[in-house]
């Protein structure tokens, strides 16, 4: 009789324990289901997004992001172009000056040739007149 009661008690307790575990299982749900069909109220990220949304104005419509460094870059490109233009002008002027110098050098060379020829003629005249020239 005692043994029967013990067995009955044990069975009752086991049944209760199983019932408790089954109810826990039913309440916890399965996380392997597709996100979206599981209850989501406690998601930490959702709470954060809710806070971000509170900071959001209702008037928010068009977002406009401007890269100010692009205009810096454009300014740098413009500055470079201006510098190039100035350098180019200077190059043209220098080129002209170089041409003049070349022309002057040419003139000087022909002058030098004329002087050399005159000296040679003078030497020849002196020799013809019996004047001996030292080297």
């Amino acid at each position: 009789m005692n043994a029967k009661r013990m067995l009955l008690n044990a069975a009752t307790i086991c049944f209760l324990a199983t019932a408790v575990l089954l109810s826990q299982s039913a309440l916890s749900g399965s996380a392997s289901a597709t996100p979206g069909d599981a209850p989501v109220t406690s998601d930490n990220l959702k709470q954060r997004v809710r806070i971000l949304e509170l900071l959001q104005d209702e008037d928010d419509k068009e977002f406009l992001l401007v890269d100010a460094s692009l205009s810096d870059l454009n300014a740098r490109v413009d500055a470079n172009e201006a510098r190039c233009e100035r350098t180019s002008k200077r190059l043209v002027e220098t080129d002209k000056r170089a041409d003049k110098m070349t022309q002057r050098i040419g003139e000087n060379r022909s002058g030098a040739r004329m002087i050399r020829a005159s000296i040679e003629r003078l030497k020849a005249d002196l020799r013809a007149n019996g004047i001996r020239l030292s080297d």
Partner: protein
Amino acid sequence: MKTTTIGILFTLLSLITLFAKPFFVSEPVPTMLPDVGTKIKLVVCSATSARKSSLRNTELVNNIVNGLDEDVHVMLLVNDRAAFKQSLNNGRVTFVEIPEESDITIWPQDPFVVVNDKENTKLITPGLFQRKDDRLMAAQLSTILGVEVIQSELLFEGGNIVCGESEVFIGFDTLFINSRVFETSIEEMEKRFSRLFGRPVVTIGNQTQDIGHIDLIVTPLSNHRIAVADSRLGAEITNRTLTQSPDRITRFERNCEKGFFGNAAIEALVDLDGNSIDCPKVVGQTKTAITDSQALADSLDKIASQLSQRGYEVVRIPALIPNQTPETEEQSGPAFPFMSYNNVLTESVANLSIVYLPQYGIAELDAAAIQCWETNGFEVRPIEGFQTSAMHGGALRCCTKVLLRE
């Protein structure tokens, strides 16, 4: 006697509870956030300034933010906050600052994968991620959003992983590289990735990938459907335009070159190492891109066939895919745009399926892609201005990572 009996019963009950628990109470297992599903709530993008990057994307960021639904919040990663000014009345965008001395790309899709259970969202980073300083992205987001970052020992890039309603699709290269690193089989690697992402894994392809990231060519859809790029169809449409209206193609090609550096006056830049960055030649290259796209078609057909055999209903979306196997290192940089209409974001709102679709500037091809998605039951929200990012090989999904769905 009675005390002993109670003691025995108590022990028995404890043992039953201990061993029975796993059968009745399952611990929540985080699963990868799918590419298909409910309304998108939170995304992350990355903006690079003109003075820090040759790929400046401010206009593209504007197009993405304004192209997404009004109540989507955008976390915007920046490493040069001082360079940016934004409209005052806008709280949709939260700036996430990456240290100024670091160098980031515009591709937040790659350095981590998002998983969640009903309690928490977590970011899983690969064991190693060497592209510039993009590994910092997950850590900075974690600081701002209070989400946990878990570093995995596995190697992966988010762009080579897409997630459907029940399965995760991973490109062959990722599994192959990991099988070599961990000296194990592809099947074992599938199991390890499956445990990491909490879903069964399907390997896309069975040999070295022709296209680096599968998110450019494979898009999971709802109801056991999947979209695969069709580069033959994309080539046909583009060829028709080239034959009938060559001026339009030339205009597109010129726009690509003009817009490459964000300023038509800039012909070349110099990188941090002193190497010259040149604008790739696009003018006159569409004909070659059409031929290359046709050559890739069989490989994409095989992927479509693989997924079809697995029981998926496969829909095909046009794509124009230029050469993906550069012969020299110089050719491995930016090139003719990769025009993918699979690199998209999708969501379902009250039985309405929506696709956010990148646009590149060949009107006939853009329109054909829109029509194709519409035929498959989607409301299309086109987002303009992806030609420059496509010259670097990425589009909308590469630029925009979904962190949370409703």
